[in-house]
């Protein structure tokens, strides 16, 4: 009991900071919005296809970015987790390297590459693969590319942690019992890496859902996601009620997805070692 109380004291500063600077303002905004306009801003959002489309775009871009990050990140993470090379730490630093450059700078970098007269188009036209420049910048594809670049380190870090904790002998045991490398992956490594997959996906999905800079700079003026729409409502439309309604709907969507993921995998996670009778 004594220990628990002391542990709580250690967590207290963080709890207080979150309470004062996050939870109270959130509640304040909600009350203020509801007092001024009632549920009108919320009803408008769910009845106007314009807004619903933005929500769908946000979810779609986030899902695609998460999925591709997982597909690209998994092999890299597996390699880093299993390599005995002296360069292992260097590889980890390279993975973390993008964090040194802000999202704004990186988005401008992608503009240089993806633009109509950008490096990519010049290259593809130069080797004769294209006659007309490809329109990538200011499309959803550009946003997804930028997003993956931004978020894949989080995916890889989550996966490396879990993959490293899988005993290599477990894989050898599977081989010795007649499992091909493919079977060993699907029956042993993949299920055992599930905790890392879940945390990586939730992290990337959440950060993608709330991203502002990447869709703003790479998606062009007509491309809207939830976070860019909040800013537009405030700065362009001066509609604070709509802005707070959108931010609340974004929050609840993310929360719903997270709860759904936790519920659907809790049984599995418990079996994997969360049990108390170990």
């Amino acid at each position, binding site marked *: 009991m004594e220990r628990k109380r002391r542990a709580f004291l250690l967590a207290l500063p963080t709890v207080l900071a979150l309470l004062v600077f996050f939870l109270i303002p959130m509640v304040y905004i909600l009350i203020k919005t509801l007092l001024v306009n009632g549920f009108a801003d919320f009803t408008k959002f769910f009845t106007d296809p314009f807004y619903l489309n933005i929500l769908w775009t946000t979810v779609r871009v986030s899902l695609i970015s998460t999925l591709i990050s997982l597909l690209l990140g998994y092999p890299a993470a597996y390699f880093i987790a299993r390599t005995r090379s002296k360069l292992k730490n260097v590889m980890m630093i390279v993975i973390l390297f993008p964090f040194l450059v802000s999202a704004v700078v990186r988005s401008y970098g992608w503009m240089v590459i993806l633009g109509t007269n950008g490096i990519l188009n010049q290259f593809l036209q130069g080797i004769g693969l294209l006659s007309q420049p490809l329109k990538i910048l200011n499309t959803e594809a550009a946003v997804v590319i930028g997003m993956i670049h931004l978020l894949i380190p989080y995916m890889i870090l989550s996966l490396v942690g879990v993959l490293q904790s899988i005993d290599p002998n477990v894989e050898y045991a599977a*081989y010795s019992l007649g499992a091909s490398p493919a079977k060993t992956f699907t029956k042993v490594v993949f299920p055992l890496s599930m905790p890392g997959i879940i945390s990586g996906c939730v992290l990337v999905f959440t950060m993608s859902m709330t991203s502002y800079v990447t869709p703003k700079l790479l998606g062009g003026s007509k491309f809207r996601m939830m976070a860019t729409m909040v800013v537009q409502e405030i700065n362009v439309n001066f509609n604070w009620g709509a802005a707070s309604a959108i931010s609340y709907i974004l929050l609840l969507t993310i929360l719903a997805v997270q709860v759904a993921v936790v519920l659907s995998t809790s049984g599995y996670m418990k079996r994997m070692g969360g049990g108390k009778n170990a």
Partner: protein
Amino acid sequence: MATLELKNLTKKFGDFTAVDNMNISVAEGEMIALLGGSGCGKTTTLRMIAGFTEPFSGSILVSGKDVAKIPPYKRNIGIFFQNYALFPHMTVFENVAFGLKLQKLPKNEIKERVESILGLVKLTGFDKRYPRELSGGQQQRVALARALVTRPSILLLDEPLSNLDATLRVEMQVEIKRIQTELGITTIIVTHDHEEAVSLADRVIVMNAGRILQIGSPQEIFDRPASAFVADFMGFSTFIHGTIGLPENRKRPVVCSGHTLFVPEAAAAGLDSGTPCTLTIRSENICLTDEPGENTVSGVVQSATYRGHATRLEVKGCFDEMVYPAVSDYTEKENGNHVLVHFPANRICVYKNTMEEQ
């Protein structure tokens, strides 16, 4: 059932030679122990047989067929890992059934075979448990069942008893031997514990620095180590340096620090008179006596450690080197007591000194 043959097997990691030109041939149903300290190449040899790592040169023959081109998942070699390596996300049943399911056997046959092997390792009724819900000994038996259930042609055991407490060790030792004999599987056991090796194996191979030092029956290795190094590894602790003389009465004298010990002529075959050599004898074979005589030297007890079944003495003054008799009867000898120590001639092993031992 299969035979196993290693021919000129060599493994290198960069400049380091982990396994150096190994030659072994294992008969059908035989149990062989690879014995050696850490880094002696025993585990690397095991991993090459399993196919987890490729040899630098040489070949591995299973029932006369070279397995170099066969991937590990097609070798049908059962392996037991030191840390068990059970699948943590599967129940005991799923763990054991893993290999059988991959063979696409009918469900009822899988169930039958899993149940019978769990009976063999005395784990009936544990099939729905997860590995983390089992004790170390139970996990170990699951690992053994999982390696055996697919009826592998060769079974590899990596330090099978090292993680267990003393009581469980003896129990599992008997269990492993019983199951192995019952199924008649050709078995290689890797261990650093000489007691484990001599109690389990039909033949023991002592290794050091990637080379084989001695191959022999447990008794041979235990009583007649091929070199002072093997003797040291097999638990001999008394080593005495001396110079050997000419044979007299089928015995040869060895002058050690002014005293003369006689050794059987056969034990010193091939040693020229005047050769510096090392004598060794097991502590249990050294005895205390009341009467002076041949191979009996006086000394002073320096310390006595009571070990339940024996008292281990450190005796100084017999030779330049300390001697360590283990007395089975309770003795009241204390520090400073003068004792007569007898070294039975037929228990002494003689080795020509080599560079590394000097």
